[in-house]
């Protein structure tokens, strides 16, 4: 791959795909340049980006090939896909074959109304996915027998880690010991070990079934149910023993098995965790999937991640929104319960719809079929002389063999992937896709040839212990019994999608979120079976195409950021941060500098930085920012001097969270290096840099990138994300490894792809199922196209800043007088003068057909606007016009024309129901309420009027929902 040494060519107008991806055509860009007072894009970027960090043109060969067309990129992806070989997955370990109902694949996974939506921070325009998520929470809570589930976790292994941390927070036991089931999934154990060591938790591994709970203090215990070996046993005595010692019981449970087996809650568990992958979400070589967590009553406030709850809107109608957000890291920073920001919304929606589509009886039937297949296989194998381990199981059995490697190779020849449990044991896991023929092949493979199979073998549910059979009800809410026909399902999905605002309706100008185009060609390969149907622990020979794609993407990302090594394992930005900080920690410790534990973080940083630092075993020291929003160099020097011997790292974001290119960044990074510290540069704002500057060139030692921002992976309504960690060579040995990685031996000396740090995700390459998206983006843009995207994004932000600066002061600009790829509009003077708040403006934008910009981050009382390069000038101007109209309305409020508590802004958003009601006693007209853009002209006006987006609910009462927490589907009467 490194032999592709072709220099990118500059084509001026850009390649075919560049013109599709970048919304502003050359003539529009000329108009915008004139508005911002720059002669050309080079002139603008030359004055905005500090000269000290700008990339100098050179003749070094690039590993990024010249831009491919869309057809070429698809052909190359087809060729990579052809290098993968999909076999029947019998490996198990938390990843099962599953049938994605076609109606869900087409209408959710492949539908931009679902995959291009953002995290539901603006709940009034997110009711569809919030309902789908509350269905997910209800499903998980029901199946686990617990009270409250969150809106999903990143994967099972990290959910277990969060379960452990929750137990430590909630337990009254004053001990650092956490007992772990020896039959837990191996990848869970690997992730748990690294994470526990970092925060000073002592793991005690025990065979809980055979030996019970070990003696001594503990704050929690993890039970895998059923175990990795497949065994099913009753853990209620272990759970009771743990609770009697003041500990919490965490049960990692298979959701499908829970339709047949007593639920964790029924067995006394405090917390249940796991994955919902086998509910219709393809394995995709490891992800993305929705992990889950549920807790018993009383622990709701301890839940990490997103939690959807019920509240009421301004008319008292029920409405969903995110609950208890004050728990989260963007508010609590280093005191947060977790660094987890995002969920896996798109995948949680898919899993919830699988349950909605099949219903409780359908799910139970699937589970019974899977169990029957496993039972039949076990009986036939035993009858044929195979040494199947005794004991109860649900879908997985272990078979003793003479040489596991020989058996695995023979099975692979026959088209089957088995699990190598150890040198003389193989594991076989069955799922809803296992065909009858598979059992016959297994019998031939594992049976003794001289034994004759019996004529009849009994099979069935008799292998499940009767006391453990499930007796409690689940999925009794009508939503799980109402949409079992495909017509019904299609319409339910359409109904929910129509409630929401996503990129398929209009601009989502969220600062720091980079809501750019997720092109159809980029998305195409996601559902190809060669990528979607790979088990994460499939043998290396069968995943060569995916490994090649991963290797290329790693090399491209390294070149673009100026680093030497990239790990794609972290499956969210927060996990990339954690992995990067763990690499810094590992580096200092390897140098004997164990005392280096102080992490400096500017006050303007995203709260996740601080939360991640704490989980990486570092202590946070805040550095002040000056009035321009830049790191205060004097304070930085003082803090460095104060912590000279203990300085581990500085975490900065570049461009800063204030949306400007800090000119002194080299002075900042130099000062940290001089004191022996490492520099972590948060890659959240990389969309302002590609092709213009590289983190590694101006002092960065390690960064995480957000492929779901800069590299086009869609936000999925609040996940999936991919947060690769990129580092200089000296940190590479400490990047995340994985015990089951198909590539790279952690014991070998460092080479690209060979890392030695603890894993941070369940799967070796995190969420490879969506990496073809970013691969296709880079492949179709080429290096010059990526720079053109940066330039267009920076131009768009500066254009918005100039157009709106008279109505809303732009809070920060760089030394050259320009912003980077986003700008902060200061609404506080307007609020002071008129009483109109940031909330009023955000909700009024809904009436105009927009998603609001980022509210009150990083500065309260402001809006941060990031148009991205993908919006065209017409859409940007439509936004500018809406903002100016809102300012004019605010001035009418300020002038006393409308009362401050009854005006079109405070009343926003306006539903069709509200404006068509026979009573209308507002001091403004229904037309102003619903069609504030009536004054606009031309074809755009017609589209705006006819295609108006109607919010389904009025403004939602946030406090009511937090004071009256309801996080499961409300009964239908609630909507009467």
């Amino acid at each position: 791959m490194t032999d592709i040494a072709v220099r990118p060519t500059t084509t001026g107008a850009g390649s075919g795909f560049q013109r599709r991806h970048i919304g502003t055509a050359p003539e529009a860009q000329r108009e915008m340049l004139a508005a911002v007072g720059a002669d050309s894009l080079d002139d603008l970027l030359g004055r905005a980006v500090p000269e000290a960090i700008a990339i100098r043109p050179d003749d070094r060969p690039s590993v990024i090939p010249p831009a491919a067309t869309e057809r070429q990129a698809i052909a190359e992806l087809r060729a990579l896909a052809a290098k993968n070989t999909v076999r029947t997955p019998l490996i198990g370990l938390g990843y099962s074959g599953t049938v994605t109902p076609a109606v869900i694949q087409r209408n959710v996974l492949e539908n931009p109304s679902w995959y291009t939506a953002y995290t539901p921070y603006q709940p009034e325009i997110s009711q569809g996915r919030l309902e789908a998520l509350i269905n997910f929470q209800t499903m998980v809570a029901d199946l686990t027998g617990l009270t409250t589930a969150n809106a999903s976790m990143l994967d099972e292994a990290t959910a277990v880690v969060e379960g452990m941390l929750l137990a430590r927070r909630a337990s009254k036991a004053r001990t650092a010991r956490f007992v772990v089931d020896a039959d837990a999934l191996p990848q869970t154990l690997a992730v748990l070990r690294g994470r526990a060591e970092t925060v000073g938790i002592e793991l005690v591994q025990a065979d809980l079934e055979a030996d019970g709970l070990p003696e001594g203090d503990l704050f929690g215990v993890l039970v895998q149910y059923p175990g990795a070996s497949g065994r099913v046993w009753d853990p209620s005595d272990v759970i009771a023993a743990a609770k009697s010692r003041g500990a919490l019981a965490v049960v990692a449970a298979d959701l499908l098995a829970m339709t047949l087996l007593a639920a964790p809650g029924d067995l006394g568990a405090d917390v249940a965790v796991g994955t919902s992958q086998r509910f219709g979400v393809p394995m995709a070589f490891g992800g993305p999937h929705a992990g889950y967590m549920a807790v018993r009553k009383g622990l709701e406030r301890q839940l990490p991640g997103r939690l959807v709850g019920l509240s009421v809107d301004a008319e008292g109608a029920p409405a969903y929104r995110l609950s208890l957000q004050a728990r989260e890291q963007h508010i609590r920073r280093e005191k947060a319960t977790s660094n987890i920001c995002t969920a896996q919304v798109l995948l949680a929606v898919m899993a919830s719809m699988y349950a909605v589509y099949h219903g409780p009886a359908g799910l139970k039937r699937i589970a019974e079929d899977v169990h029957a297949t496993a039972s039949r296989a076990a009986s036939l194998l035993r009858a044929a002389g195979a040494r199947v381990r005794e004991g109860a199981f649900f879908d997985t059995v272990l078979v003793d063999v003479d040489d596991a490697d020989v058996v695995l190779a023979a099975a692979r020849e026959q088209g089957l992937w088995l699990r190598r449990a150890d040198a003389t044991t193989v594991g076989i896991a069955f799922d809803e896709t296992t065909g009858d023929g598979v059992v016959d092949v297994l019998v031939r493979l594992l049976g003794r040839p001289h034994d004759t199979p019996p004529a009849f073998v009994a099979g069935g549910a008799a292998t499940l212990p009767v006391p453990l059979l499930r007796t409690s009800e689940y999925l009794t809410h009508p939503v799980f019994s109402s949409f079992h026909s495909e017509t019904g399902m299609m319409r339910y999905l359409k109904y929910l999608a129509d409630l929401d605002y996503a990129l398929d309706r209009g601009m989502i100008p969220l600062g720091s979120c980079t809501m750019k185009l997720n092109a159809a060609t980029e998305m195409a390969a996601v559902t190809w079976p060669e990528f979607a149907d790979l088990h994460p622990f499939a043998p290396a020979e069968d995943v060569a195409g995916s490994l090649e794609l991963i290797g290329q993407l790693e090399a491209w990302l390294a070149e673009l950021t100026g680093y030497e090594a990239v790990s794609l394992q972290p499956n969210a930005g927060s996990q990339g941060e954690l992995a990067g900080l763990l690499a810094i920690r590992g580096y200092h410790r390897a140098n004997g500098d164990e005392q280096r534990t102080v992490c400096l973080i500017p006050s303007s940083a995203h709260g996740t930085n601080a939360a991640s630092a704490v989980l990486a075993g570092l202590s946070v020291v805040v550095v002040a920012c000056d009035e321009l929003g830049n790191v205060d160099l004097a304070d930085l020097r003082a803090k460095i001097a104060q912590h000279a011997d203990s300085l581990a790292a500085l975490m900065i974001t570049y461009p800063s969270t204030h949306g400007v290119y800090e000119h002194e960044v080299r002075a900042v990074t130099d000062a940290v290096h001089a004191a022996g510290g490492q520099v972590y540069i948060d890659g959240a704002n990389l969309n302002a840099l590609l092709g213009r500057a590289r983190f590694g060139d101006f002092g960065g030692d390690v960064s995480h990138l957000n492929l779901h921002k800069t590299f086009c992976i869609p936000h999925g309504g609040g996940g999936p994300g991919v947060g690769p960690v990129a580092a200089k060579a000296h940190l590479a040995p400490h990047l995340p490894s994985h015990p089951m990685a198909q590539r790279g031996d952690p014991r070998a000396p460092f080479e690209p792809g060979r890392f030695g740090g603890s894993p941070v995700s369940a799967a070796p390459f995190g969420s490879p199922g969506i990496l073809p998206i970013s691969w296709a983006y880079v492949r179709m843009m080429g290096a010059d196209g990526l720079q053109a995207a940066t330039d267009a994004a920076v131009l768009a932000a500066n254009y918005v800043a100039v157009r709106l600066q008279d109505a809303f002061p732009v809070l920060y600009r760089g030394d050259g007088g320009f912003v980077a790829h986003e700008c902060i509009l200061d609404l506080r003077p307007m609020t002071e003068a008129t009483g109109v708040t940031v909330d009023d403006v955000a909700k009024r934008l809904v009436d105009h057909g927009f998603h609001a910009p980022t509210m009150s981050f990083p500065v309260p009382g402001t809006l941060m606007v990031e148009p991205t390069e993908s919006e065209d000038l017409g859409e940007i101007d439509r936004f500018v016009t809406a903002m100016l109209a809102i300012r004019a309305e605010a001035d009418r409020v300020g002038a006393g024309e409308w009362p401050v508590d009854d005006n079109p802004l405070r009343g926003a958003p306006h539903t069709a129901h509200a404006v068509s009601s026979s009573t209308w006693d507002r001091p403004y007209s229904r037309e102003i309420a619903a069609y504030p853009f009536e004054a606009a002209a031309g074809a755009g006006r017609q589209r705006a009027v006819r295609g108006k987006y109607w919010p389904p609910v009025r403004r939602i009462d946030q406090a009511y929902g937090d004071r009256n927490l309801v996080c499961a589907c409300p009964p239908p009467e609630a909507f009467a």
Partner: protein
Amino acid sequence: MTALEDLKYTAEHEWVDADGDVATVGVTAYAAAQLGDIVYVDLPAVGDEVTAGQTVGELESTKSVGELFCPVSGEVVEVNEALSSSPEVVNSDPFGEGWLMRVRFTELPDLLDHDAYDALTGAA
């Protein structure tokens, strides 16, 4: 209820009403307004030994979290149980029904008087 002018205050926006050896503690109207709609109040347990300056609880609003610093050292003798079901009372009546806890103390530290607190918040 003691008149606001006769209460003692802290720089962390708490008020202290000392009666004998028991101090009733709450947050000021200024603090409640800054926090916004309070949705959850986390208080220490009765019987807890507390030290002045120690964080003993939290007030959570929809958008932020305020820490409750204990203004006096001593033993918690009572907490306002009503707040667990009606945290909004801290917003509506911070100096009255929205009190947070009562602490039995041995010595009252130096606290701000009403004028000094007003000066701190710029209300004077």
